[in-house]
């Protein structure tokens, strides 16, 4: 378990003042995924083995450099959770057989994008949860296959323009949190880098638990979502205040919303910030689609708010 997990985070002042993850990575300016990974790593600490699935973050460790102070293992797009199984089991065996001491132990943490998580990685993750694997799973969700130029994935929201949905994505964003919760894991949560205190509390809570703990971070993506990199934090906040990205957690059979936006900002205010939704506003406003997106968000909060 990380050394950072000993203290308890109550206010923004309790957050670490320096980042653990090294600087100089090749991520894009304003990357919302890197923002979240920074904040998460600060809480987890260096006794962490990141088991990575193919995605943007794979380029964090590119020979001969690595920004990680602990472990890192790239696996494949589909099987990072199985990699975490191998690392965890091996460390358990080494502990049981007395070949390593407790202070040499590390936490296995999957780091995967939405392309992997919502798609080909789901089978391995589902199986890891059903086996009760003691691991953390971090999904950075930029709502498309970002590393290959933002084609639509199972995480792309309805109506979003991507490299493979020029007229707006016709499907609906899959409810990953609900899928995870259906497995009854030890813990599941949604976070966003723009709300660092909420994120830190959840990561800290997860870090103190055992068993499968799954966290998905909405990750605003300047290149994929088409906006100015300086707006990443603002867009993240709008995702929360508009109710598009509910912040919530699950444990012991209960779902709790850690932030209920009230009053909620109209979804339009969030959509307008991003070029991927520009076709909803120009040359003509697509009133039906805008109303439809707002209605879905309203329906969600009517149930949970």
């Amino acid at each position: 378990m990380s050394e950072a997990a000993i203290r308890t985070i109550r206010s923004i002042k309790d957050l670490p003042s320096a980042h653990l993850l090294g600087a100089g990575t090749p991520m894009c300016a304003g990357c919302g995924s890197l923002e979240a990974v920074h904040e998460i790593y600060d809480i987890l600490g260096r006794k962490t083995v990141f088991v990575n699935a193919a995605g943007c973050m794979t380029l964090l460790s590119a020979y001969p450099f690595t920004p990680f102070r602990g472990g890192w293992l790239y696996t494949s797009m589909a099987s990072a959770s199985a990699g975490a199984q191998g690392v965890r089991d091996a460390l358990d065996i080494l502990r049981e057989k007395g070949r390593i001491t407790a202070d040499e132990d590390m936490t296995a943490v999957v780091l995967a994008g939405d392309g992997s998580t919502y798609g080909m990685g789901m089978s391995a993750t589902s199986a890891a949860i059903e086996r009760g694997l003691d691991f953390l799973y971090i999904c950075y969700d930029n709502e498309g296959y970002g590393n290959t130029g933002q084609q639509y994935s199972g995480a792309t929201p309805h109506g979003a323009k991507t490299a493979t949905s020029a007229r707006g994505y016709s499907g609906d964003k899959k409810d990953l949190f609900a899928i995870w919760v259906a497995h009854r894991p030890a813990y599941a949560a949604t976070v966003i880098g723009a709300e660092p205190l909420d994120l830190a509390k959840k990561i800290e809570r997860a870090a103190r638990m055992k068993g499968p703990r799954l966290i998905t971070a909405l990750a605003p993506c300047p290149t994929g979502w088409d906006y100015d990199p300086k707006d990443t934090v603002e867009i993240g906040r709008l995702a929360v205040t508009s109710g598009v990205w509910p912040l919530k957690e699950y444990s012991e059979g209960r779902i709790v919303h850690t932030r209920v936006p009230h009053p909620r900002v109209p979804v339009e205010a969030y959509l307008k910030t991003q070029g991927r939704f520009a076709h909803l506003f120009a040359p003509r406003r697509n009133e039906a689609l805008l109303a439809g997106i707002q209605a879905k968000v309203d329906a969600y909060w009517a149930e949970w708010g």
Partner: protein
Amino acid sequence: MSRLLLTGNGAAAWGARLAEVDYVPAFPITPQTEIIETLSGWYERGEASGRLVTLESEHSMLTAAGAAAATGVRVFTATSSQGLLYAMEMLYAVPGWRAPFVMVNVSRGVASPITLESDHTDILAARDSGFLQIHCATCQEVLDSVLIAYRIAEDARVRLPVIVNQDGFTLSFTREPVENPEIEAVRRFLPVYDPQNMEFRASRPVSQAVAVLGGSQYSYFRYEVHLAALNALGVYEEAAREFAAQFGRNHPAVEAYRCDDAEIVFFMLGAFATKAQDAVDRLRESGLRVGLVRPRLLRPYPEAALRALLLGRRVVVVVDQNLSMGKGGVHYAELASALYGRRGAPLLLSYVGGLGGRDISAEEFFEMAAEAKMAAETGVAPEPRLLYTAGELREMRKLQAIAQAERVELGRKP
């Protein structure tokens, strides 16, 4: 030392047990399943200490195997056919991690059509992956090869995963008397796994299996794996020598049977080579100077040993239990590349046979020998061909007629 009546699968499980493996990521597939069931039973009953975890696929199984080996424990796993193909992405990935472990593959034909019975097309799909390959012809060899495989895999000069291959059904489900070595002797031969610097420990940060940017770095690391695989030739010989000294059983990289004065040599891998051995005995009785060469090591390719054994022969008859679509037998092409342009290179004859559990009969060996004799006399090799009899073809035509009649019957309007 004790003697047990073991199937090839039982022998594989005993190999893993005697190697005192720490960890077995598993997934069931016919005809491999008995291996993991046997290990699971021992672990559950406390008769051996190890941890077996069933993953949800072979792709995940191989990822877990590589990840655990990269964390510093001794890993064993097993698969077959479609499972091997399903794991193919990771099969190519994990050798580059330089994480040593051993996998037993129980050879079975690949779809389509789907079948359960044996040939070697599955294992040859893994040929270029970076896994080393040892091919077995008996149940005893399966057990012994698992132990030898760990020695090679974990050697500092190699550090690569190894596949031990056995034929589905022919070996996997056939019981033979197998010498089971004493654990103390095995420990002398195979010391406790030293992960060297391959591990995840809190005090020693490391990033493994990282990306490279550019072909120069990529070429370097890929070629390093190739060189490590080539190192395994010498390391194998050392390990086999020590194994023979310790246990009295000799497993050379290439086995030669009655080759001393042979003019015609059969070339085969795996269990069906024992049929060739029997045919050699009978052909010798008829006065033909014939022998058999059976590589146990396929990767690294024991080129020097093959040249030493085969240059100067008149004809080598390559019997491939595999089929590279649009090319033919894989071993034929590989052996040709090893012998081409060398002084004394023999004529090569190519036969593809024994696909998907189809037998190769003694008569067929005699026929191949007769064609080889003719080729030796004329200096001309016949075209490659499939071992398939006229009787078989007649039966096949009957089945096709039935299938056709069925289709017509089903399509008829009521």
